[in-house]
C-alpha cells in the first residue's frame, strides 16, 4: 500500500492501476484500491478530542465509515484539496486588537477538505479534521458554520510542518474611532480559491475594513494568490464563485448567546 501525503495531492495525484493507496492524517483515513476499470474508495472519520484550548490532541473512536466501488479508469479519478464546505466562525485564541486608522495582516490556518471526483463528479467531500458545527445569526435566520478556534500569526510564523491546513491571509483595517477587537468573525473561506507554494496550501487574501459596531464591516474575498506568493500554482477554484453582497454584510454579529429558556 502506497502512502499518500499532502505533497503528492498538491501536485495533481493520478493513481496507477493495480495499486492501493492510503491517506491517514488527523481525523481522516482514506483507502483507494485501484484496478484497471474499477476503483474502490473507503474512508473513515475519527471523532477527535480537544483540550481546553480546543486544539486537537488525540484521535478517538471511528465515528463514520463508508466504502464505495466505482467503475472508472484510473485517469478519471482525482483528489483535489478544498476549503471546508461551510463558512467558519473564527474565534482567535488571542484576539488581535487593531487601533483606529491602523492595518495589520495576519494568517490563519484553516483545516483542509479533500474532494474526490470521478469523471468530474463529486463523490466525497471529506474533512481532514472534523470541526464542530455552529449557527451564526438569529435562530430563525442565519448561516450554518463550523467553529474554528485558531491562532492568528504573522507570515514569518507560518508553520511549514503543519500540512493539513490552508493558510489564509487576512488584512484587518480599522476605520472606526474605536479599537477593533477581532474576536468573532464569520470567515467565508468557501469563497476563496486555493494555491500551492513552497509546499503550502494558500488561499487568496481577505480584506476586512471595520467601520464600527453600528456600521459593521466591508469584507472582500480575493481571487488571486497573495503578494508574497505571486508564482504560486493554482490548485482549485473557490467552492462558490458568485455571491450577493448582502451575504458579506453578515460577518460580524455581536449577540453571542441567543439561547432562550
Amino acid at each position, binding site marked *: 500500500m502506497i502512502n499518500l501525503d499532502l505533497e503528492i495531492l498538491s501536485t495533481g495525484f493520478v493513481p496507477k492501476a493495480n495499486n492501493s493507496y492510503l491517506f491517514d492524517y488527523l481525523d481522516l483515513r482514506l483507502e483507494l484500491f485501484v484496478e484497471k476499470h474499477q476503483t474502490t474508495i473507503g474512508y473513515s472519520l475519527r471523532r477527535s478530542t480537544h483540550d481546553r484550548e480546543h486544539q486537537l490532541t488525540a484521535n478517538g473512536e471511528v465515528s463514520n465509515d463508508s466504502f464505495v466501488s466505482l467503475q472508472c479508469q484510473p485517469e478519471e479519478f482525482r483528489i483535489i484539496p478544498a476549503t471546508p464546505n461551510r463558512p467558519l466562525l473564527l474565534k482567535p485564541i488571542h484576539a488581535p486588537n487593531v487601533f483606529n486608522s491602523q492595518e495589520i495582516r495576519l494568517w490563519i490556518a484553516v483545516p483542509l477538505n479533500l474532494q474526490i471526483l470521478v469523471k468530474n463528479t463529486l463523490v466525497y467531500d471529506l474533512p481532514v479534521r472534523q470541526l*464542530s458545527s455552529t449557527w451564526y445569526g438569529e435562530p430563525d435566520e442565519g448561516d450554518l458554520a463550523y467553529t474554528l478556534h485558531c491562532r492568528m500569526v504573522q507570515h514569518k510564523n507560518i508553520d511549514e510542518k503543519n500540512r493539513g491546513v490552508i493558510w489564509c491571509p487576512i488584512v484587518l483595517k480599522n476605520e472606526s474611532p474605536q479599537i477593533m477587537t477581532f474576536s468573532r468573525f464569520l470567515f467565508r473561506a468557501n469563497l476563496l480559491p486555493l494555491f500551492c507554494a513552497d509546499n503550502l496550501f494558500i488561499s487568496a487574501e481577505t480584506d476586512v475594513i471595520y467601520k464600527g459596531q453600528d456600521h459593521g464591516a466591508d469584507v472582500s474575498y480575493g481571487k488571486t494568490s497573495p503578494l508574497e506568493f505571486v508564482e504560486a500554482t493554482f490548485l482549485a477554484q473557490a467552492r462558490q464563485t458568485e455571491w450577493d453582497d448582502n451575504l458579506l454584510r453578515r460577518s460580524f454579529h455581536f449577540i453571542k448567546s441567543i439561547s432562550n429558556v
Partner: protein
Amino acid sequence: MLSSIMEYLHNDGVVKILILVVKVVVGYVFIQLVNYLFKKYLGRQMNRQSSTVISRFIVYGGVILLVMMVLDNFNVKLTTLLGTAGVMGLVLGFASQTSIGNIVSGLFLISEKPFVIGDMIKVGDKSGIVYSIDLLSIKIKTMDNQLIRVPNQTIISTEVTNITRFPIRRMDINIGVSYHDNLDKVEEVLREVARLNILVLDEPEPLVLFTGFGESSVDILFAVWFEKANYVAVKNSVIKSIKAAFDREGIEIPFPYRTLVTGKDGISVAGMANSKNN
C-alpha cells in the same frame, strides 16, 4: 340539448364528427402543452403548492373550455346551459358547503403559507411530513408511512405546529440526578457532553437549567441546538453520551423501585435474596 345533438348528427354526418374529434384531441394536447410549459418555465420559480394549484386551474379551466367548444359545435345554446348551471350551482352550493369551505380554506392556506410541501408538521396528535396540498385537503405522510388526509378547514381552525420551519431546532432532554450528587459537577459533565458532540451546535449555547426538586431527584433541563436534519443522530448520541458520562463520573440517575413483600411473615423478596447470598 339532446335534440340539438341529434339534429347535428343527422345533418352533417361522420365527417363533422371526425373534425370534432380532431379538435378535441388537439385541444387536449394544447392544454397539456400549456401546462407543461407553465411547469417548466414559471412553475419552477414558484413554491410547489402554488405551482400545483395553478397547474390544476390550467387543466380544469382548459377542459371546461373544451367541453363548451364541443357543446357549441352541437349547436347547444350555452346561455341556456349557463342559466341552468347557475340554478344547479346554487343547489350544489347548498349541498356542498363543506367542500366549498375546504376550497376557500385551501386558498387561505396557499396565501398564508404556514408550511410548504416537505415540512414536518403536527396537527392535533398527528405529525408527519406534508405530502401534498390540494384544493380540499392536505395529505401528511407519517413517520410509519401512513397517509393522513386532513381537510383544509380543519387545518385553518386548529393549531398547527411547523416542526421544521427553521434550519435549527432545540432538543430538550429532562434529566434527574440524585440529591447526593454535586450539581456543579453535573453541569460541567453535561456541558462537556455537548461540547464533544460535533453535531450539537456550539451556538446557540447549550442550556443547563436546574428546574426544581423532584420526589427523588434534582430535575434538570438540558437543551442542545442542532441542525434539523440531524434529529435522530443527535438524540441518540446525546442520550448515550449522557449515560456514559454519568456512569464514568459516578453520577446517579435515580429511578423509582419497589420492594415486594410477600407471605404471612411479611418477608421481603429483597430480604430473602440477601439472606440467600449470606
